[in-house]
């Protein structure tokens, strides 16, 4: 009885999995049509599911709140996921120029203090 129940459940699950795939197989999606004209075609061959897993792992590693990760991934297109996957640590992350200026100022101050340069005339 239990195994028959299991068979029914599995059949149902397969139906659910199967139908959208069949319907999509013969239709060219709009994004596919757009990308076919604008992007290198080999990109499409890269598995979007793999890119998704990779981005998820990078989000975790970079300290994104676990509760936010799924909704952030859901708003990215496959092409964006492929771009992000593997590169998240190196891509430009807009932050704050003040930090950079601070570091440069600190370096100049140290150089001044140890006598390598002499640009702050009033510096003791």
């Amino acid at each position: 009885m239990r195994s028959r129940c299991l068979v029914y459940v599995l059949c149902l699950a397969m139906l659910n999995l199967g139908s959208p795939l069949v319907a999509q197989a013969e239709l060219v999606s709009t994004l596919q049509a757009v990308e076919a004209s604008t992007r290198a075609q080999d990109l499409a061959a890269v598995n979007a599911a793999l890119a998704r897993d990779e981005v998820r792992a990078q989000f975790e590693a970079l300290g994104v709140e676990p509760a936010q990760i799924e909704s952030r991934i859901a708003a990215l297109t496959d092409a964006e996921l492929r771009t992000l996957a593997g590169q998240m640590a190196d891509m430009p992350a807009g932050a704050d120029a003040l930090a950079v200026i601070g570091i440069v100022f600190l370096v100049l101050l140290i150089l001044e203090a140890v006598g390598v340069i002499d640009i702050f005339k009033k510096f003791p």
Partner: protein
Amino acid sequence: MTAPGPVRAVLAIAAALIVAGCAVRGPVLAPAATGAGGRVELESTPFFPQERYQCGPAALATVLSAAGVDVTADSLVPEVYIPGRAGSLQAELVAATRRHDRLPYILPPTLDALLATLDGGLPVLVLQKQGAGPFPGWHYAVVVGYDASRDHFVLRSGTEQRKELSARHFLATWDRAERWALVAVQPGALPPAPDFARYMEAAAGLEAVGLLDAAALAYEAAARGWPAESLPQFALANLAYARGDLAAAERGFHAAVRLNPQDAAARNNRAEALRALGCPTLARREIEVARMLAAGGPLSATVEATARAIASHEIGDVAGCPPD
């Protein structure tokens, strides 16, 4: 305190580079600016002073609020901020714009496109690169105006509500960020001076993440704005097919084929819609043309799959099939 030889040489080179960088003179904006008397400032654009490292959420809140979304910089932090990078990525600003039901349009990387967008009344989120070498200072800001006679831009930037930046300085930092610029557009409206391919890519992105109503509004705007292009008709027909409205889908694909008879994707999809409607005779004719057009291209596998599905359709035409 005098510098030793090598250090003095480095300083001299640096000074020479700075002087060389400033050597080319002449206004940047005067020749490019044409609209609105050469001066625009979108004064009503809101301002969200940024917290430390959080120019991404602040800049995004600025353009989203200007597009009528009820957000703050703080409310966007969990959506776009990455603690491990102490910043935000471009792709995530695009994705968050979508999540708030706005079309994320990436501008063509030209000064003309930037000025035309400001002339059209939309503030522009830009990426700037200010640092150098091992300390690249990536920064997001929002351009809200320009003044050609004074050759400067006006930005909402960091903690400054109204930052005037010389056009030369702004362009230098924008160039080094590959002139990346984003606007948030109300679905159903077109951005000022829109580029068709960029607009359609943004609209298709809405559809791809499941925002079908916003995508439909965007495609309808494209169909009105570019009546000679087949892609908006094709896109609307895809949405109709997904809703299960096969008759409307077939009409839309047919409209796309009439606008561009070389469009293999439109012919493939029309053939599939005809098959699903129970019109295999016309579907066969359409898929044969699609096969010739798609041969060797990226769509050939899909077209072959459609052809097989039509070939295995054994029942004849139902009543009411289109004549051609």
